[in-house]
C-alpha cells in the first residue's frame, strides 16, 4: 500500500490510463464520453474493461454517450480531503445517472455548487486541465 508523502499532498491525484481505459481517456480528449456496449447481451457499462460485467463476453463496442444525464445523488464538499482540494471548496460531487443507464462520479462546473438538486438535468463538459495533460469529464446544468 501507498503512504501519502506529505511533500506531495498539495498535488491533485490525476488518472493514469491503463490498457483497459486508454480508449476512454483518448475519447475524452476528443470531447466524447465513451461507454461500452456489449454486442452479445446489449448491456451498457461504465467504466471500460476487457469483459462485459453482465455476461462475461469480450465483444464490446465503444460508443459515445449523449452526454445528458440527471443527478442521482450529490454531496457538497466543504471539508476538503487534504490540501490538494482546499482551494476548491465548496464544490459539488455528483453521482450522475447517464441517459444510457450507467452512473458515474463527477463534479459540477459552471454553476453555484449550492444550487445542485436531485434529478437535476446535467450535461457533459470535457474539461482540459490547464496544468496537466488530461481531460476530465465534468457536468454543468443542462
Amino acid at each position, binding site marked *: 500500500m501507498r503512504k501519502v508523502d506529505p511533500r506531495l499532498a498539495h498535488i491533485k491525484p490525476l*488518472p493514469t490510463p491503463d490498457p483497459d481505459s486508454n480508449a476512454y481517456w483518448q475519447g475524452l480528449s476528443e470531447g466524447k464520453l465513451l461507454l461500452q456496449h456489449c454486442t452479445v447481451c446489449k448491456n451498457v457499462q461504465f467504466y471500460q474493461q476487457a469483459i462485459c460485467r453482465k455476461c462475461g463476453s469480450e465483444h464490446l463496442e465503444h460508443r459515445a454517450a449523449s452526454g445528458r444525464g440527471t443527478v442521482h*445523488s450529490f454531496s*457538497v464538499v*466543504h471539508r476538503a*480531503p487534504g490540501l490538494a482540494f482546499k482551494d476548491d471548496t465548496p464544490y459539488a460531487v455528483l453521482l450522475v445517472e447517464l441517459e444510457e443507464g450507467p452512473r458515474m*462520479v463527477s463534479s459540477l462546473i459552471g454553476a453555484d455548487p449550492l444550487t445542485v438538486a436531485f434529478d437535476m438535468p446535467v450535461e457533459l463538459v470535457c474539461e482540459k486541465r490547464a496544468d496537466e495533460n488530461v481531460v476530465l469529464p465534468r457536468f454543468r446544468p443542462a
Partner: protein
Amino acid sequence: MTFSKSNITSHRTIRGKAAIVGAGRSDIGRVPGKSVMALAAQAAKAALADAGIARSKIDGVLSSIALAAPFHRFSVAFSEYFGIQPTFSNTLQVSGATAATMFNIAAAAIAGGLAENVLVLSADSLLTGLSADLALRALTEGRDQQYEMPFGIPAANTFAMTAHRHMKEFGTTSEQLAKVAVIHREHALRTPGAQMTTAITVSDVLNSPWATTPYHKLDCSLISDGAAAFIVSSADSARTAFKTRPIYILGGGECYTHEHIFLMPSLTTTGAVHSSAKAYAMAGCSPKDIDVAGVYDCFTGTVIMMMEDLGFCPKGEGGRFVDDRQITYGGSIPCNTHGGLLSFVHPGFPGGLFHFLEVVHQLRGECGERQVAGAELGLVHSLGGGFSTQATTILGTEATL
C-alpha cells in the same frame, strides 16, 4: 443478487467452534510518543493479560493494515516486533469491514485446525502519526484513481451521497441524523477513556460546520490513535484454559456488492442485508433476539441505514427509529454503548474492533453503569469503502450455545 438456500444454511458452520477469551486495548484518542507498533504491542499485552496466557501460546495472528505504518505484511511485521513466530498469519484488507472478518476467519481457522490461539489485532496512529489532513488524504487514496479520486471525493463523500439519497427517498431528516450523534455522545460520557467528553445537543450538531452535505462535522466520526487486540481460541479450551468468561462466535457473514460508488446497486439498501442474513441463519437467531449491538458508525446516516439492513426496523424507518431512542438503553436494540466511532474513538482500521471490545464486555457483564441488563446475545457489524464491504459477527455467552 441472489443467494441460494444452500449458501445460507450450509451444514458447515463456525457456530460455537471458537470463543473470544481475551480482549484489550491501548491508550486511545491523541496518543503522542507511541508508534503504531507500540500501540499494537500495548493492546496485545492487554489482551494476553486479560486471557491470562503467555505470548508463547499465540500460534496465529490476524491483523488489518495500518495507514501510518504501511507494512504490506502488518501481521508478520508485528509478530517480529512482538517476538513471536506464529504458524498462521494474514493481513486483511476490506476497509472498515476488516474487523468482523478477522473474527469470522479466526473462528474458521480454529475450526479447520490451522491454529489454536489466534491474536486478532489492529492499530493505527491517524491523529499524531499522520495529522488529520494526511489521514483524510490517505483515506481518499482508497478511492479509484481513475474514476473517483480526480473529482476530490473524500471517503466521507460516498457515505454522504447514500445518506442524501436516503433523505430524498424516505424523508429522513438532518435532525434524525443529529440524534444519532447525540445518543452516541451520551454513551461516550459514561465510558472511561472516551475521546469526547462533553455533551452535545441536536442543535450543536446542526450548527457545526459542514463537512460534506448532508453531513456536518458532528455527523462524522473521529480521527484518533489507538489499537485493540483479542485472543480467539477453540471452544474446547475456552472453558478451562483462560481467566475470562468465554464469549462464543455463533455466526458470521459477509457481502461485497461493488467497488465503485457508482456501481452500488441501490444507494439506500446495502450488502448488510445479506451479510447479516447469513450470520443470523448460522447463529440460529433473528434480529429481535439480539440484546446488544455494535454497529459501524462512521457517519450518523450509516447507523440509520444499518438499523434497517440488519433487520432492527423496516426499510425507510431508520430515521424515526433513532428519533424514538430505540438505539439506546430502554430501546429495542442498545447500540454502541461505548460511544462508537462518533464519540469514543476512531483510529481507522482498528475502529470496528472497539465495537467488539464493548460487546464482549457487555456479554461478560462487565460494563458497570453502562451494562445492558441480561445481555446474552450480541451482534457486531463492520462495513467500509462506501458500503462496498460488509461483515457481520454474532456473539453469545455459554447460555446461547
